[in-house]
Every structure is written in structure tokens, then in C-alpha cells.
């Protein structure tokens, strides 16, 4: 079973306690009424979908209940790091360099 660590609880827990909640760091436009349909569709539906490291929102649903962010490798399913809401997105290129070392 995949273990995921929660930055709020500070422990690793089985993945069944968690829910995936889409790509992280997507800011809702401040004034949706001023956007074109294409811009709104871009915000609603278009996602990075990379092969490799991705910043995602996760929620510790059956634990502390908190949303947090995680960097996960979409190829290996490995969680590289997790961080609390509001904290800056790590530099993915830097993480790749560190992972290679």
C-alpha cells in the first residue's frame, strides 16, 4: 500500500485515508465576468498533465481533514515532497537535480 505523509499530522498514512484533488496552484481569476469564454475554459479545464513531477492538491480526508500540496511523479507514483497550503511551490527542476544525485 502506498504511504503518503501529511504535513499537518506529521506522519505517514495509508493512501486510503487521502483523496486526490487536482492540480495545485491554479488561482481562480479575480473577475470571471471580464474573461472571454476561452480564458474561462482555460481556467476550468486545461491542466498541465505532465509525464514526471507534478504539483497536486491532496486532502487528508479520513485524518485531519486538511488540504495540502504534494509533488508527485506521475510515472512512478512516488511522492517527492509535501507542503502546507500557502507555502511556495518548490522548484521542480531543483527537485529533479536532487533526485538524480
Amino acid at each position, binding site marked *: *500500500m502506498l504511504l503518503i505523509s501529511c504535513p*499537518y*499530522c*506529521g*506522519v505517514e*498514512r*495509508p493512501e*486510503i*485515508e487521502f483523496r486526490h484533488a487536482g492540480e495545485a496552484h491554479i488561482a481562480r481569476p479575480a473577475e470571471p465576468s471580464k474573461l472571454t469564454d476561452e480564458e474561462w475554459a482555460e481556467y476550468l479545464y486545461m491542466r498541465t498533465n505532465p509525464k514526471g513531477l507534478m504539483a497536486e492538491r491532496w486532502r487528508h480526508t*479520513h*485524518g*485531519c*481533514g*486538511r488540504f495540502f500540496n504534494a509533488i508527485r511523479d506521475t510515472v512512478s507514483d512516488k511522492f517527492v515532497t509535501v507542503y502546507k497550503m500557502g507555502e511556495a511551490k518548490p522548484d521542480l527542476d531543483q527537485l529533479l537535480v536532487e533526485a538524480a544525485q
Partner: protein
Amino acid sequence: MPEKSVYSANADLAPIIATSRVRVAEAAPLIRFSLRGGEAAASHAGTAVGVSLPLEPLTSIATDKVAAFWLGPDEWNLVIQDDDARAMFERVETALADTPHSLVDVSDRNRALIISGRKAAWLLNSQVFLDFDEASFPVGMVTRTLFGKAEIMLWRQAEDTFVIEAWRSFMPYVIELLQEASRELEAA
């Protein structure tokens, strides 16, 4: 941890499981409040109920009349032994009057089981995928987690004593799975 706990077996009910190695009993009714809010709310509520609410993740503070369980960074479960739920609720609500918070009486939402005995952790591990070694799950630790598919709150009251709280509609499912695991334990 006090020998006497806010949780005591309901004397009117027969034990759910009673073997030489593990015992499961339904807990007597209790007052339960769900508190959401910041550290200021926690501090005021603590003064009102008589224990300081735990701020460290996964920890609890308990006397034989009150237990406060950390469930999340802004969420606590307060379990209280008292005859007058309404007066107790008013007391906490009054203490929190000037502090942003949410306080909900959830006394009847949950039922609680007391699981004790040498094989208590073994029994729980039939459905709970946590490591109950005392280094990783010490006495006093509390967590929300899954028991099979039912969400529970799990507290280690003493080395060989655990308390499960679950929504009452989930409790027959939890109880029957515990009984099934205990039959396996007896057969082993």
C-alpha cells in the same frame, strides 16, 4: 493516563466480546462537542471544560471527567461526563462568545467502544492499517482513520486499552467485523 477514564463500560449492556485475550464493551452515553476554531477558541473552550485543549497533532488530554482530542489543526472532539448537556453547551458557548468558532453538540451522533486486553491491538489491526507499536502509536495518541470502510476516531487510552468512536449508523458494521476477527483469534 488515569486508570479511571471518561469512557466507562455501559453496565446495562452485555459485553460485545469477552474472551481471555480481548474484551470489547459499549461505552456509557457521554456528551460530545465538535469544536472548530483557532488557538484562541481552543484556549477559551479549554477553560470552560476544565482541560487545556491539545495543540500538538494527534494528541489528547484526558481526566476521568473530560477528554479533549486533537482531530485537525482547527478541530477538536470534546468528550465530557456530565448530566446536563444543555448547561455544559451554554457554558462553552458563553466562553467562546467573542471568538470566531463553531461548536456543535454531536453527543448522539457517535457510539463508542472500549477495546481492552492483551490482543486489543491485534484485533484492531484486522481492519485498521496503523502500526500500534508504542514507538509510533504511544498511549494518549488519537487519530481519525478508517476501520475497513467506516471512518472512526481511535484513541489509545492505555497500553492495552483503545477507544473507538464511530457514527452510530456505522457501528453495527464495526462491531460485526470485530466479532469476526475475535472468532479468528479464538480459533488460532
